[in-house]
């Protein structure tokens, strides 16, 4: 579901590695930089993996449930009838891996049902499905 974040972490680690390798002149400095980059990369990878595993969504009979977060564990439930519109976006990193993010908007500004890192076809299917359900059960304000 969410490979995009991993790639971002890898890119950051790579950039950091290149930068520090260029900056350090001496041999111990080089070793230190390499170790640092490795540790940093591993940490980022681990964090992203954890976060990736925390993301989950479930299309239920009446509502969509999205859970996420490691530090702050959140669970959002948006009834289909409350949806105002559905957004599908794909950032540059997501586009590389042919992924997309589906976001549900309700009339409440604070609602945050977002599902990142979906395969493009799945995102399109979800969007159409949600839009259909939303229309069928529109509940107004």
């Amino acid at each position, binding site marked *: 579901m969410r490979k995009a974040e991993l790639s971002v972490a890898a890119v950051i680690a790579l950039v950091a590695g290149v930068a520090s390798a260029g900056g350090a002149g001496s041999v111990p400095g080089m070793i230190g930089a390499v170790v640092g980059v490795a540790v940093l990369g591993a940490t980022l990878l681990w964090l992203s993996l954890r976060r990736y595993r925390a993301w989950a969504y479930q299309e239920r009979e*009446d*509502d969509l449930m999205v859970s996420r977060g490691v*530090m*702050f*564990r*959140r*669970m*959002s*439930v*948006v*009834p289909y*009838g*409350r949806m105002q519109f559905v957004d599908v976006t794909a950032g540059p990193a997501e586009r590389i891996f042919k992924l997309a993010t589906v976001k549900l908007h*309700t*009339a*409440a*500004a*604070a*609602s*945050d*049902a977002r599902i990142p890192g979906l395969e493009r076809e799945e995102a399109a299917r979800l969007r159409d499905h949600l839009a259909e359900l939303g229309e069928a059960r*529109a*509940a*107004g*304000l």
Partner: protein
Amino acid sequence: MTALGPQTRGDGDAPARWEQTVGSGPRPGTGPEWQRLHPLTPLIAALRSVVLLVLVLAEDSRNRSAGVSTTLIILGAITFVLLLGGLVRYAVTKWALDGATLRVETGLLRRDARQFPLARIQAVDVVRPFLARALGLAEVRVRLAGSGRANGRLAYLSAPVALDLRARLLAGHHGLDQSTPEPAEQPLATVPPGRLVASVLLSPAAAIAVGLVIAVIAVTSVSRAATAAVGGSLLVYALSFAHHTWKRVADQYGFSVGLAPDGLRIRRGLLSTVAETIPFARVQAVRKVEPLTWRPMGWCRLEVDVAGSAGREQGTSRLTRALLPVGPTATADWMLSSALGLKQFELSKPPRRAAWKAPLSYHFLGSAYQGSVIGASKGRTKKTTTWMPLGKAQSIRWVEGPLQRPLHLATVRVDAAGRGVVADLRDRDSEEARRIFDSLLLASRSGRHSAAGKAPGPETTQGADTSPTSLTAPARAADGTAQPLRDGPPPRGLTYGQPPAPPSELA
């Protein structure tokens, strides 16, 4: 879109009008009856700026002794430009109430045609800025859900036209014939000027002001030289404080709230007056705010949340959400129960260990839900209690933060339409939070379903009119009948004509 509107109406000779309606500009006799703003409108646009300019330039010329003639020329030129702008705006703006839609068209170079489906109205306001009021004019503002930009403004109409338009908009909103006269209202509460001034003076800003004065006195007694320096900055502060106080008082002066079949009516203002009408079904949540400084007096503020943003619009006094800017708690409680049909209930405190996570606000934390209403209170020095009907829930969230996890606590948040309209069942026991979350989901689902089931068929008063009506009719009906905030009395919003029974407490 505008060309299609009149054509799709249900009269038999619609096809014959097609050729005429395709053309642009006003379509005399065919579509809606286009009306213009009041002819004095451009004058007000210019006048307001002129008053300001006169002040600025007068000050300027006194200081630098610039020639009077240049001042006059500048003033005249600016006035002329403003007047011209106002005239152009007046010439290109027109509006029409066409069946179930209010249409407003404006713009010289970039035409801007807007439609406001009456069924989607969140509130209707009649705003009368001082200058407009002096000339007998008023502005009608239609609030829709969404950002302030979605609102419709008609500035300015003559006062009788504005009031008539408001009555028609609200009647149309409730699915009644638009010639239905505005129903009588039942006064709920007023705010005497003395209490209003006292409440403004009992604010934190006033406390700071008093503290500063004491500090200045202390400084003066120590050294005379420092007085001048401190005095200058103090003057600035005093001026801004005076301005703030004045604004608050002038905004809420003569505040009165009334109950009418078409909604809650709020009237207020000293120089500029505002009259808001909020249909009951549009109330998303109610909040009772009890600031620390008001506690000795036993006062509180009652706020109401509507999906339409009140927004700050240029020139006119801004709309607040106060249902009662300041009043005795007993009055507020009475208003909640009698006007909004809300039975307040005891809120349960979170477990004691939540004090480790929220040491400063634990004493006010409390939440519960009963029947179809959620109640939640919070605050450090200012106790804020929110009441929200479950039927208004847009989404439900469950959050467990890093501080809450070791304490086995979790928060359940219920969002309603609008910005920052949320009821937090904060720091409940994990198990309990989970249970609340699940049962809220169930309850909100059944709330929506029963609303849809109970809903009468879409009203057909508008005939086979535009699609907006048919799209929103179920929603409106659902709102009208579901209103868990008013489960006691019958939904007055749909039964116009019979004035509300006078609450016995008033007599």
